[in-house]
């Protein structure tokens, strides 16, 4: 019996000493962290996507608290959480927040298999980066989408997928958080973050080809040839043509769609607008012929 008692006492003493040492260490080596950082972290989505530009949500929480102390939360925005989360964070920190427009990734290329003929066969590593380094790709357009899906790989939200029929990636508006990963991944800078627009409506030039007209037309049926008709037509001065390519400034565009109607190559695309209603005269004519 004695030895059991001794064992218990010895172990108990070791335990007690260890506990005291740990307590002392936790006090002496404690790192002070502002409790607000943990609170803000709780509010953030926790996806650690890096879309805010900081290393993970904890990095963003740190920056937000520092920003609050400095007096402003300008320039800090969580694209995943959006206005809702930023509002909650601003409330917690007792700050006001500027309203930012929701953005979405836009793939500015319509060079589908139908529109763009293949002139060569690529037999190497199937990534956009490798194909871009090899040359123009399998078509005659050295600026257009290569369709190997580097953007798809980069997206952490499953918001962009290459359509196997057209060979061009398509963005799921609901899932896109405009974090910008696909923009960085595309070796040809085809993807751009643009304003989502009211009711998701937006107008953009779906082409980034800077070749002169004849060369661009030969490569793709719907390429922008830089003719400038859209620039002249736009009543708001939102379109500029530079290097044989038209660009619509989404800050100035009012979605009037005049440019789309006047583009001879159908290179300008308008999304999420209602389908055009048939005119009344046409309906009468149809009834007559039937």
């Amino acid at each position, binding site marked *: 019996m004695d030895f059991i008692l001794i064992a218990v006492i010895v172990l108990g003493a070791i335990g007690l000493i260890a506990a005291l040492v740990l307590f002392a260490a936790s006090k002496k080596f404690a790192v002070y962290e502002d409790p607000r950082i943990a609170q803000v972290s709780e509010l953030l989505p926790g996806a650690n996507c890096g879309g805010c530009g900081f290393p993970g949500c904890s990095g963003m929480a740190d920056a937000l608290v520092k920003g609050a102390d400095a007096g402003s939360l300008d320039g800090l925005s969580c694209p995943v959480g959006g206005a809702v989360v930023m509002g909650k964070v601003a409330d917690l920190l007792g700050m006001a927040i500027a309203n930012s427009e929701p953005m979405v990734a836009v793939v500015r290329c319509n060079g589908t298999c139908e529109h763009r003929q*293949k*002139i*060569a*066969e*690529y*037999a*190497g*590593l199937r990534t956009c980066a*490798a194909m871009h*380094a*090899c*040359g123009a790709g*399998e078509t005659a357009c050295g600026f257009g989408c290569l369709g190997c899906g580097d953007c798809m790989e980069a997206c952490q939200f499953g918001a962009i997928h290459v359509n196997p029929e057209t060979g061009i990636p398509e963005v799921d508006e609901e899932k896109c958080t405009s974090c910008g990963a696909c923009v960085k991944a595309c070796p040809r800078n085809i993807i751009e973050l643009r304003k989502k627009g009211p009711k998701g409506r937006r107008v953009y030039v779906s082409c980034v080809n800077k070749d002169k007209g004849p060369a661009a037309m030969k490569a793709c049926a719907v390429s922008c040839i830089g003719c400038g008709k859209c620039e002249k037509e736009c009543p708001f001065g939102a379109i500029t043509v530079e290097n044989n390519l038209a660009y619509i400034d989404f800050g100035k565009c009012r979605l009037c769609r005049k440019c789309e109607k006047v583009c001879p190559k159908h290179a300008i695309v308008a999304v999420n607008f209602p389908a055009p209603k048939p005119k009344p005269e046409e309906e009468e004519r149809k009834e007559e012929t039937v």
Partner: protein
Amino acid sequence: MSKLIVSLSPHAHGTDSVERNMYGVIIALMPALLVSFYFFGLGSVVVTATSVAACVFFEWAISKYILKQERNSVLDGSAILTGLLLAFNLPSNLPAWIIIIGALFAIGVAKMTFGGLGNNLFNPALVGRAALLVAFPAQMTTWPKVGQWGSYLDAETGATPLSIMKDAIKSGDASLLNQLPDSLSLFLGNHPDGGGAMGEICGLALLVGLGYMLWKKIITWHIPVSIIATVFVFAGLLHLANPAYADPVSVILTGGLMLGAIFMATDYVTSPMTTKGQLIYGVAIGFLTVVIRNWGAYPEGMSFAILIMNAFTPLINNYVKPKRFGEVAK
């Protein structure tokens, strides 16, 4: 005119392929295989066939039904190789059901769970052998004598040279070593009264295999030479200090040393990627083998030495770098 094909350079490729290397090693094992049929007869044929069939079956089934791979990995020939090497580590009177368990361990646990060819950390055949040794110690440590043509499960067993050496060390009696067959018999494999594992028995056949692999540039000399040289030196020093330790030539020619040095330690996946690293690896294996053989519980140390060093291979790969071109001495 059909479209031109494009890709980045290089636009040419040598004649080497995974299949060429795997089948090359299998061909290198043929002399040892034929010799084991000669010495161990029916038992050897049954054990080899069962082991190869089981390994191939398990790899095919796992690749098709569990991993659902497009191109079934059994086609590259590595399963046949694992089957042969596993069989070479076994006694020729091992019952079929034990062999199948061994194959399941080798392919299923040691190879496929890690991700298949190229990703395993430990040598699959050795993991199979080690698992069987631990699970079935009695069956795995009784070795049939050579020369029994028609017997399989009923083969008569006897002491192996390794067990003789172990006794000598334990008792400290050097005269026991006189029971060892002479070096030539050990080299050719016709031990008068003893046995061993199927593949270990004939050093000559294994050396022929080594020659073939070096000629076909399947492996380089670094690992086999460093292992054998280290064992020779270390065992030699021990023998000089105390004659109860066997002479270095016998040490090299007995047990799984030649088989391990030539075929098991040189496995691509589990050995280091630089020649410097391979030499370090070989020296360590040689050292550990002698240590385990002399002072460990088991008479055979090679398999455990290789498995231990397999675990160190990633560390060696991390720190041992090849000599860079134009390296400026710091």
